[in-house]
């Protein structure tokens, strides 16, 4: 595919256009992913999440600077929510990463969730793989962590960094366990504010309760990202986790699981689409639909009859 060839030979424009295409879930996406596959060399993904206002974008900015100093090429995916009403989005994370705007070794892509319930766009994995094929060593994915978002980011990232602010200390007991459970590294940012040490101590206490001898011990760090304080420590911890994942074999295992999930997920999408097409061609669906909407037929009986019709069609 021509666009893929151009991307592989280094065109950022082609990279950007490919990402747009796989974001759209068009049939092209499968073709693109096929062509990309032989060029993937298993890049490393760092997920950065936490409540709004915690300083995630600033941390991404400073971490990127450290990675660049180490000669690493960095791809950044900055995610913001799509409005469920207008389907539009305000994507303002990259504003905190201005120092990297003209650096060829950094690529920033703002993505809207586009209706995905888990807080990460469904196309995230495709985008990560394209960035991998382009040649980025590390991909940073930044997303807002509230509600059930945590699960998505933890699945997508090799190292998950959760960023909190000292004010969270008051609500830590009621905070959803999710954020703490998925963190490979916990960061209390804006640590110059009151309550920072107290929160850090509380977090360490809560983590100790869940300790499992064989696994990674999640560190709690204090940072002031805006002043570049504590970032080198964060970087060292990330490097430790990186080594841990590789040495323990978990990196390979995670990626094997990810490929499996992507395979099954794509099959499911295809099956849904095919069945929808079958039902629409069938014509009966409209009758069932009207009866159900009017309340004449209950949804469950209607669904059972539709399932039966599909099974009959498939086993013919």
């Amino acid at each position, binding site marked *: 595919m021509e666009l893929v060839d151009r991307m592989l030979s280094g065109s950022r*424009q082609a990279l950007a256009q490919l*990402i747009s295409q796989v974001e759209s879930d068009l049939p092209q996406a499968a073709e693109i992913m096929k062509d990309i596959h032989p060029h993937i060399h298993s890049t490393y993904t760092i997920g950065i999440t936490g409540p709004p206002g915690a300083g995630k974008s600033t941390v991404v900015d400073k971490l990127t600077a450290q990675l660049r100093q180490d000669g690493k090429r960095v791809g950044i995916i900055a995610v913001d929510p799509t409005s469920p009403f207008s*389907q539009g989005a*305000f994507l*303002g994370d990259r504003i905190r990463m201005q120092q990297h705007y003209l650096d060829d070794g950094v690529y920033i892509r*703002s993505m809207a969730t586009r209706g995905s319930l888990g807080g990460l766009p469904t196309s995230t994995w495709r985008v990560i793989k394209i960035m991998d094929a382009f040649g980025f060593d590390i991909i940073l994915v930044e997303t807002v962590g509230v509600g059930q978002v945590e699960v998505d980011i933890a699945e997508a990232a090799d190292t998950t960094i959760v960023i909190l602010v000292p004010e969270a200390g008051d609500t830590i007991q009621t905070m959803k366990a999710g954020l703490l459970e998925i963190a490979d590294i916990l960061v209390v940012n804006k640590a110059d504010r009151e309550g920072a040490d107290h929160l850090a101590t509380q977090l360490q206490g809560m983590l100790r309760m869940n300790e499992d001898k064989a696994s990674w011990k999640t560190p709690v760090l204090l940072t002031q990202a805006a002043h570049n304080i504590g970032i080198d420590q964060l970087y060292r911890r990330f490097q430790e986790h990186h080594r841990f994942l590789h040495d323990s074999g978990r990196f390979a295992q995670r990626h094997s699981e990810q490929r499996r999930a992507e395979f099954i997920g794509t099959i499911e999408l295809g099956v849904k689409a095919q069945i929808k097409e079958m039902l629409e061609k069938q014509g009966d669906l409209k009758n069932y639909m009207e009866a159900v909407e009017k309340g004449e037929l209950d949804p469950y009986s209607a669904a059972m009859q539709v399932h039966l019709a599909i099974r009959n069609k498939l086993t013919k």
Partner: protein
Amino acid sequence: MAKRIRVLMAKPGLDGHETGAKLIARVLRDAGMEVIYTGMRQSPEMIVAAAIDEDVDVIGLSTLSGSHKEHASRVIDLLKQKGADNIVVLSGGVIPKEDYAALQSLGVKGVFGPGTSTRVIIDFIKSSVVSNN
């Protein structure tokens, strides 16, 4: 899923007032577009690099301090150089009416000063993007 319209809102030069740009950004978001806001004090190089990396359909240049022609000209030249001149460039902010024609001859597809109906801007963008694709 239809392709979403992506817009880059940028403030080139030394303007310190972003209220207008942010307002338009929200208006466009509410009209279903994905708006990337790159912030203030952007150089034309930064704007074009961001526009290409984010694969936007439209660049909105917001200026209030008089540098609209210079910046529009530089942005449009850079877009041509990089083979990205299918991106629609629009100007907004405080721009004297007598400069509208000059901007358009530079390649700016639309100039929207204060008081322009947001509906006009939204419709203009939607029709420009359709005709491009």
